[in-house]
């Protein structure tokens, strides 16, 4: 209770909320995620999978100007179980294997690029140049997402 009052006192407002892209993204993200979580809460159906689904959905919806978000949306709508981060464990293994190769440098770089493609949703369908630029904004959005999630978690405890 006290904490909420403190938070309210320290509220800060931006003069131009639409100009800063990270603020825009964060606002969109939280505005998608929080109602979805509330809905989940009401349904008493909070399994790990569904929350993750909502989290990814919020990410995809808040960043619709990027190509990877479209792919992510497709994935999410096609399957109820999102698979965006299940490749992470595979990714580690692939990385170790490429270290052991030690052979052709060009081949190594290509392997790493391919791995990066697997990390990015929809990365396999892009060519290398496109993928590199998409990775850039994907990283940014992931960072903002982690901040938003952290602050939501913080606030709820």
């Amino acid at each position: 209770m006290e904490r909420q009052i403190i938070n309210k006192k320290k509220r800060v407002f931006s003069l131009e909320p639409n100009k800063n892209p990270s603020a825009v993204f964060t606002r969109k993200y939280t505005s998608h995620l929080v109602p979805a979580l509330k809905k989940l809460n009401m349904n008493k159906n909070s399994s790990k999978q569904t929350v993750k689904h909502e989290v990814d959905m919020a990410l995809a919806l808040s960043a619709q100007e990027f190509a990877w978000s479209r792919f992510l949306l497709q994935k999410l709508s096609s399957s109820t179980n999102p698979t965006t981060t299940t490749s992470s464990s595979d990714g580690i293994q692939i990385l170790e294997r490429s270290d052991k190769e030690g052979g052709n440098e060009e081949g190594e770089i290509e392997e790493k690029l391919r791995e990066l493609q697997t990390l990015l949703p929809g990365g396999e369908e892009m060519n290398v140049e496109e993928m590199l630029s998409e990775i850039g904004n994907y990283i940014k959005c992931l960072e903002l997402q982690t901040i938003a999630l952290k602050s939501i978690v913080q606030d709820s405890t």
Partner: protein
Amino acid sequence: MLEGLVSQESLSLNSMDMSVLERLKWVQQQQQQLQQVVSQSINNSPELLQILQFHGSNNDEFLQSSFSQFQMLGSGFGPNYNMGFGPPLEALDECISRTSSCHMEPVDTMEVLLKTGEENRAIALKNKRKPEVKKREEEKTEKKIKVEAETESSMKGKSNMRNTEASSDTSKETSKGASEIQKLDYIHVRARRGQATDRHSLAERARREKISKKMKYLQDIVPGCNKVTGKAGMLDEIINYVQCLQRQVEFLSMKLAVLNPELELAVEDISVKQFQAYFTNVTASKQSIMVDVPLFPLDQQGSLDLSAINPNQPTSIEAPSASWETQSQSLYNTSSLGFHY
């Protein structure tokens, strides 16, 4: 006058090295390719000869002054090649001024000029082209007009990417040419072979430039990428970072799932979080992100346990064999650690 020049030149020829003769042969080959460029004005030739008289003295100063004179003549460059000596001679100045012991060059110029009176421009450009041809790998050999157009347009600093590339290489390769003046013909042979596949190599180079630009941008985004050099290392870092972020998101969403029943979020409170994100420096390390948040309640700062949301922890929590119960238990433990105050 011409005869005098020839005699002077033949004398100097005898004292030249073989490499220069080979170079002359190359130049002749170039001229054969330049047969298409037969739009020489006779007006320029007497002036050029006059200027080339100065060459006989092998005096660099004269050369430069003469070329600057010539520059005045050539007002601007365009499709009119008759007046196009100015800009390339500028670069020619650079070349010659950098070649310290280059007695050969002006003599070569003369020699070649005398052999084919029509291709004055090609000859005058020869010395410029020598180092420049190396980087002009993209130009087709049969389209010399284009080559020279682009040479001169690069002088003018047009915003053609190829030219900017070429001009950026100019400084490197003219100085290279100065030091390797004896091996010029070898280098030219290489360049000429490269010229044969110019379109492909040009496209390749453009593609590579784009990719390297994007890699640089990624280097700025991903923390810790500056220390690693080379594409492979940077890609490694980027991959690790993306995986780390994804794991973090997963961990947080799991946490959120656990804490979901306890959510008492009012929508107004969300604005606080939004602007936490707004002010936070994202590029800082994960731990410092929490510390930097300005809206953090003061009493919590001292006892903040950063390990609560430590990205390294999820790896232990997310052990593939962990069951849901143990995971949730560990989450409760960490959350109690972190938010205890």
